[in-house]
């Protein structure tokens, strides 16, 4: 692990971004805030020696997925939800619960983690990840591809406009 200061820096970005997603009223601002959060996450990955993941994080998640999000938001022309944002009883309870959950988790995760020194030089590189994925974790890899197929099929089904001739 590198300097603790970087950890706290990136962690703050992640959490700050997440809070921003929830509390900013403009949906576009929320999306951008999410991108920030994800960038911070990428930074954390770098700190953990998972360079490949960091790159993929930025490329795929922040780059492709969030861009899609922003496309949709802009297309739908969503308006500010400031008017609709009110502090209801339920949300207060929700806040309390979430806070509790966070505290419990944080308190107990302060125990030392599994700390194995990184032995393999290929750890975190494309080579390392690729090797694992295609040998040891081949089966999950294939399942994921199945998962993606299903997701695509579903997206197409649900989003595509029905050709009146196709469905009976």
């Amino acid at each position, binding site marked *: 692990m590198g300097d603790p200061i970087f950890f706290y820096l990136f962690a703050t970005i992640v959490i700050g971004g997440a809070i921003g997603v929830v509390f900013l009223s403009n949906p576009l601002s929320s999306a951008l805030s999410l991108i920030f959060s994800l960038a911070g996450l990428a930074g954390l990955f770098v700190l953990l020696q998972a360079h490949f993941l960091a790159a993929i994080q930025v490329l795929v998640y922040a780059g492709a997925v969030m861009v899609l999000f922003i496309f949709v938001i802009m297309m739908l022309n969503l308006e500010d939800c400031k008017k609709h944002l009110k502090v209801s009883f339920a949300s207060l309870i929700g806040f309390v619960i979430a806070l509790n959950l966070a505290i419990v988790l944080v308190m107990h995760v302060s125990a030392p983690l599994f700390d194995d020194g990184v032995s393999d030089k290929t750890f975190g590189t494309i080579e390392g990840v690729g090797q694992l994925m295609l040998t040891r974790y081949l089966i999950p890899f294939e399942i994921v591809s199945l998962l993606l197929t299903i997701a695509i*099929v579903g997206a197409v089904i649900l989003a595509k406009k029905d050709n009146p001739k196709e469905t009976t």
Partner: protein
Amino acid sequence: MTIATDWNMLLVKGLPFLTLLGMGLLLLVIEVLWWGKDKTIMLILSLLAVAASFYFAWDQWIQNIPWSQQLLVFDRLSYIFDLIFLFCLLITLLISRDHIKREHIERGEYYALLLLATVGMMMMAHAGDLMVLFLGIEVMTIGAYILAGIKKRHSKSNEAALKYFILGGIAAGLMVFGIAFFYGATGSTQLSILNQTFAEVDSSQSVLIFLAVALILVGLCFKIAAVPFHFWSPDVYEGAPTTVTAFMATAIKAAGFVALFRVLFIVISLTHIPWVPLLSTLSIATMTVGNLVALRQTNIKRMLAYSSIAHAGYALVGLAAAAKDNQLSEMALGAIVFYMMAYAVITLGAFAIVVAMGHRGDEAEEISDFAGLGQRHPLLAAAMTVFMIALTGIPPTIGFIGKFYLFASAIEVGLYTLVVIGVLNSVVSAYYYLGVVMTMYFKEGAVYRWPPLAYLLTTSIFLTLLGTLYWGVFPKDLFLMAQESVRQVIF
């Protein structure tokens, strides 16, 4: 690290889900290429695949040669659940055809998604690694999301899909969180390794592990719709097309339980956790809430949704009994497996009849639509009566036997209060189940022409009815199968 994988073995052992996988993908292709309007070919191909898969799974179960590949396991427990899933799939396919035609959702993807979702379930059953388990859950669930929302024009279907998706996502997120903690604490996600590790767990790492278990449990309880994670269930069951609901209520519930089994097998040795109070509380809450709210329902699909919540509660009684003394008692586990089978048979039958009710033109979803069925269509009413009686748990149906074994296993280990509550709940449930029967026979309904039921629909009703009654009187073979399946579970 590379692992020498015996690919031949894997191929042979994995035939049940491989056939379904292959056919599912094939169907996707055919859907694109098919020139005609008639999608019956899809159904036929699906049924073929189911038949083949059933054969393979059955064969493997009989042979009883357990094998593990580190990420996947192939023991009798997996195969019997494969068989359960296949049965659910079969009945669902049979009742689907005319239903989806009427609902204008007949597309190849429907069949494909059903098959592929089943593949996901089988992954869960054969999971030897938490990652595989999670991925199997996701494959199954995403397939379910899509199927729930496949009635695009209906807002209820959209609502169902969206709610399922959002809440399911939260649950899945928490679950992955838990799996990550597991990895963090032990360095592996493989179940066999975890099993050994937990035997020698020490206190410095144990908190993390406990947290992990808690979060994973959250995810799994969501899947089986245990209280208080059940809120999605009524809305989703109501909004989804009835055949999809049937599938979800039976197959997904069973899949959830097999996942619970796999996880519990390894964490049960954590003696610091008092399992029985936890599972008992979950069970009581689930049963009670399910039954009490079901009393108020007027929509039969919602009622069946709450009923399925309650039945998950009953199965949890068995789980609580199984967890006593930090060992997993075979009798209790066998009872749960048996209950999954029983519950599947009965519920599929009930849903088949609901589908049949919609046969006459408009979707019959209210219980009041059943009024007067006793006169209009006595056979259908009689079948429904049997299913309702079976759900209540009255002999000579399989529903009674299932509950009997569950409660018996609980009494064996001394969980008397739990059993009493379970029985009281069964009594309460009689109200709404028999309410349907009463409506059918004692209320006057509208008179209209009744078109002949589709063959496949009739066949499925007949099959489930037969199963309910036959195994209600001669349950021994089926129960032995269930017991054998939990005997030598491997990791």
